Each structure stands twice: as C-alpha cells, then as structure tokens.
C-alpha cells in the first residue's frame, strides 16, 4: 500500500475557490466528452434532426409561406437552428437523471469538490452537441442554396449567441432532471415545456398569420426574440434590441435556474 505521491491539497479548507470550481467543472466536462466518444449514438438526435427538419420544412412549406424554397430559407434556417438546439438541450435532463441513478454521483458528492462542478461540467460537455447542430443546420441550408448576407462573421456571432442561450436554457432541463423521479418522466415534462416554446413562436411561420391568442404568446415568447435576433444579424447584418433581449433572457434563466438546480442537487438524497 505504498504510493509515491502525497495528496495535492494539503491544506484543509471548508471553501472551494472559484478557480478550483472552474477547473473541476472543466474536468467534469472532459468526462462528458469521454462518454460521448464511448457512445457516439447519443449524438444521433442532434445530427439527424437539423438535416431532416431543414429539408422537410424547406421543401414542404417553402412554396406556401414564401413563394419558393429559396425565399423561405432566410426565414427557416434560424427557426430550425433554435428548435433543434433546444431539443438538444432537453437531453441534458434525461442524461442527468440516468447518471444520478448510478452510484457514481454518490462518489462525486462524497468528494471535496465544488457542488456545481458535476452539473456545470455535464452542461458544458453538451455544448459540443449544440455546435454540431449549428454546423449541420447551416451546412444543409448551404446545400439547399442558402447564402447568408453577412457571411462567416455573421454565422459565427449567431452561433455563439444561440449556443450560449441553449446553455442557459439547459439549466431548466437540468433542474427537471435533478428533481424528476425517472428518466421517462423527465423526458415527458421536458417535451411539454419544449414544444409550446418552439412551435408557438415565429420559428416557422410569420406571427401575423396566427390567431389572436397564439399571436400574443408568440410575440412574448423568448424563442421568438432569439429567432428574430438571429435573422436580423444573419440576413441584414444588424444587431437589434431582440439580440439584447435574448442575452438578457438567457442570463435571467441562468441566474434563476442554476442556483435552484444546485440546491436541488445538494438536497437530493
């Protein structure tokens, strides 16, 4: 039982510093990436959905909504992007639930690490899913003839915005995952939140065509603001108040749900 190295943290402290917290979260993100490498099939939803939806919706609704497919794409691509990325965010809840049912979370809890690290790490690892969605959506759009006005710079800014937003929103689903009793239940609840949010918005159709109540909801829906912000940047090269509203919305969600999730995680037996 002789080991050469002594423990790295020699000083006993009841606090975890911000530095340690970030470091530990990144290590947990690395764990998440290792898991993705072991089970690449878990990326199938974020791979197929953007391709399938872009093709399907484009050729299905293009003519009806914008006269032809080509004119519909500037409207559709941002919508698909947001829809697919938020669908990808839902998975975090289910994954966390499954993960927490395994014994390994007991070990994380009994280790002297920041409480938020296992959660933040899992969510950080998920950004690879969002990046994949973003790339595939734009690639499919490109093949269908979509050439954004603002080119690569616009796409980059939009990608950062939508991935950050999804990361903030994923804390909502993480909370569902932590408090939920079974993976199937979490999946159900998450879908109930996701579908109205994404479909009752301006993601696929112009809001003006909606009945009064739906129109009202679609206009206050944060997803609509995000979609509009993306369209404005990518098609017209302008940053409108919708951009700032989306940033604010994301931050508010993060500030509310991240502490709630960590609290629920800490108290979970």
């Amino acid at each position, binding site marked *: *039982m002789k*080991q*050469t*190295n*002594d*423990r*790295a*943290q*020699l000083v*006993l*402290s*009841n*606090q*975890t510093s911000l530095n*340690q917290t970030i470091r*530990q979260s990144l*290590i*947990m993100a*690395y*764990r998440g990436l*290792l*898991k993705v490498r*072991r*089970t690449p099939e878990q990326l199938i939803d974020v791979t197929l959905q953007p391709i399938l939806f872009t093709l399907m919706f484009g050729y299905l609704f293009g003519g009806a909504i914008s006269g032809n497919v080509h004119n519909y794409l500037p409207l559709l691509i941002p919508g698909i992007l947001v829809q697919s990325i938020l669908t990808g965010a839902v998975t975090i809840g289910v994954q966390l639930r499954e993960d927490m049912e*395994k*014994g*390994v*979370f*007991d*070990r*994380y*809890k*009994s*280790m*002297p*690490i920041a409480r938020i*690290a296992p959660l933040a790490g899992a969510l950080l690892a998920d950004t690879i899913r969002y990046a994949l969605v973003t790339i595939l959506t734009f690639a499919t759009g490109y093949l269908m003839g979509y050439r954004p006005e603002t080119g690569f710079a616009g796409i980059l800014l939009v990608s950062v915005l939508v991935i950050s937003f999804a990361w903030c929103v994923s804390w909502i689903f993480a909370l569902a995952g932590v408090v939920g009793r079974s993976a199937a239940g979490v999946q159900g609840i998450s879908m109930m939140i996701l579908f109205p949010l994404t479909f009752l918005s301006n993601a696929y159709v112009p809001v003006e065509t909606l009945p009064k109540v739906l129109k009202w909801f679609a206009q206050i829906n944060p997803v609509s603001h995000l979609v509009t912000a993306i369209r404005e940047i990518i098609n017209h090269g302008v940053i409108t108040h919708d951009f700032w509203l989306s940033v604010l919305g994301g931050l508010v969600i993060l500030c509310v749900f991240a502490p709630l999730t960590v609290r629920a995680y800490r108290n979970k*037996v």
Partner: protein
Amino acid sequence: MHHKLYNTINPSIAVEVHGLVKHFGDNRAVDGIDLQIPTGTVYGVLGPNGAGKTTALRILSTLMKPDKGSAKIFGHDILTEGQIVRQLIGLTGQYASVDEKLSANENLYIFSRLLGFSRSDSRKKTKELLEEFGLMEAATRPLAKFSGGMRRRLDLAASLISKPPLIFLDEPTTGLDPRTRIQMWNTIRSLVSDGSTVILTTQYLDEADQLADHIAVIDRGKVIAQGTPTQLKASVGAATLELKLIDKTEYEIAKTVIQSLLLVEGHFSSEGILTAPLSDPELITDVLLALRNRNIQLSEVSVKTPTLDEVFLAITGHETEKVAVESTFSLTTNNK
C-alpha cells in the same frame, strides 16, 4: 506526513456520533445512534438488511443530512464543515460508485484530477492503483464487461486516491463469490496496516469477526450491542447445536431435554430445526444420549459457529426480521 494535520485536533478519536436520528416518513431508519470510533481501528457495523447501516454511513459521509444529532470526523462537524470532512474520507458504496460508461483507467484519472492532482501525477496515481488492485490488464476495457469483484476493487481503489485517513466500506463483499470475498478481505487488512481507520458495514458475523477490532450490532436503527468480536461471540455461546428430528411431534420433548441439560432455551429456526447455544462441546454427548433414552430419532445433527441470526437471538430475543416470521410459521405447522 499529512496525517499529523488532522490528528492534532484529537489524535485518538476518528469518529464521534451523538444521538443521530433519520426518518423516512414513519420509518426511523436511524434511531438515536451513539458511537465513538478510535483512530487506526477497523470498526464493524453489523446488522441485517434495513437495520439502518447504510443510512448511518451516508450521513457520516455527508451524502445525507440527519434529522437530529451530531457527528464529528477527526473533530470536524459533518454539517458545518462538510467540505473538510469530504477531504478526510473515502467512500466505497454498496453499489460500486464508478462510472459505468468509462474504463477503469479513465475513472481513476478523472477522480485524481478532481482531487487536485496534476495531469502527470494523476496518470502516475492511476497506474499505481491499477497495478495494486490487479486491474492493469482490464484498464482500458469498458466497465460493462467487469465482474462484480473487479468493480468493487476499482471502487475501493477510487476511494484511496487521496489516501484518506478514514475509509467507509458499505457491505464490501455482499454479492461476491467466496474467492473474491477473501481477496477483498486481504485488501482491507493491508489498508489497516497502512494506518487508516476503516468503518465497515456487513451482514455477516464472520466478516466482522475476520476484519473488525470492534463491532457495533445495530437493529431497527439502534445500537443494541458493542464490543470486540470475542466478547460478542461469548455472549452467544461458542457454538450452536442444531437438531432435526424424524418425528415432528417430538420437538417439544427434545426442547425440554435441552433445557435440562444445557440450561438454555432451544429455538425453532427456519426449516423446523431445533437450535441451542452450546457453551461446552462436551455436553453434546449428554444431549444425544438423553434423546436416545427417550427414543427420539434424529435425522440430522450439527454443531455450527454462531451466525448473525444467533447473535440477534442472544441479544434481542428475536431473530433478524425475515427469519423470525419463518420460524413462527414453522412452529405453528409443527404443532398441527
């Protein structure tokens, strides 16, 4: 070395527990436990399924908050100084607490990194532990292909990365085959020779007997007996006499014989076997002769070392829950 650091607070006491209580609804899983565990010993917590062993361990390892009571690990309060306590303990759970989707190598590397070791130190540490626990060949295989014993060993290895002075082992050999069980015992023994304090829960008296310096017997959330294994076994009797009769109607007579010769009361255990603690093996001859004289025919005779059930019988007067139900059942069928 680093051991000095925590031992300055109170060198002789590793764990101190006062009036610990935890309910789950109406079920008082832990019902007022007091413990004092000396540093450098193996402390066995012995009890049947559902006695509250795991709950107590989860509280001490800060996974769960108690409803009442307090506990200190090397002088640090589990409630107010949780993060310090977590630096002093290693937990090996009843169900292996390792990452199923990763390899043994990756598991140990990630735990090492989380504990603050650098990349190269983590790799070194991982290699050392894999070698020590005989997992080198399986290091890169996914855990799904691991046997129960390999999983437990990996789990134990993961608890030892930071060389914690206190190690919790929750039923470390439950579900293991006899050979792996003895391997695990040897590993635990070498841990102690390294100076660690170990708290071990188990359902098996022989396991506690093999490994522990002190044993606390717990039942329904309460400590019902404490002492060294020798003291405990002495309270039960050195061995147990088991008799099975051909004619079931003669059990009551046999019981009277035992009472008069061994001066103890016999019990009907499961499967209609009459058992009685045996303080002196010499007395068997007397019992068997007396039965022969009364023309009671035996189908089976055996002398066994005491089991947890007998410890329970001796201490509480009732058997461990499940067995107790069965024995009343067999008693009533016998009477028919």
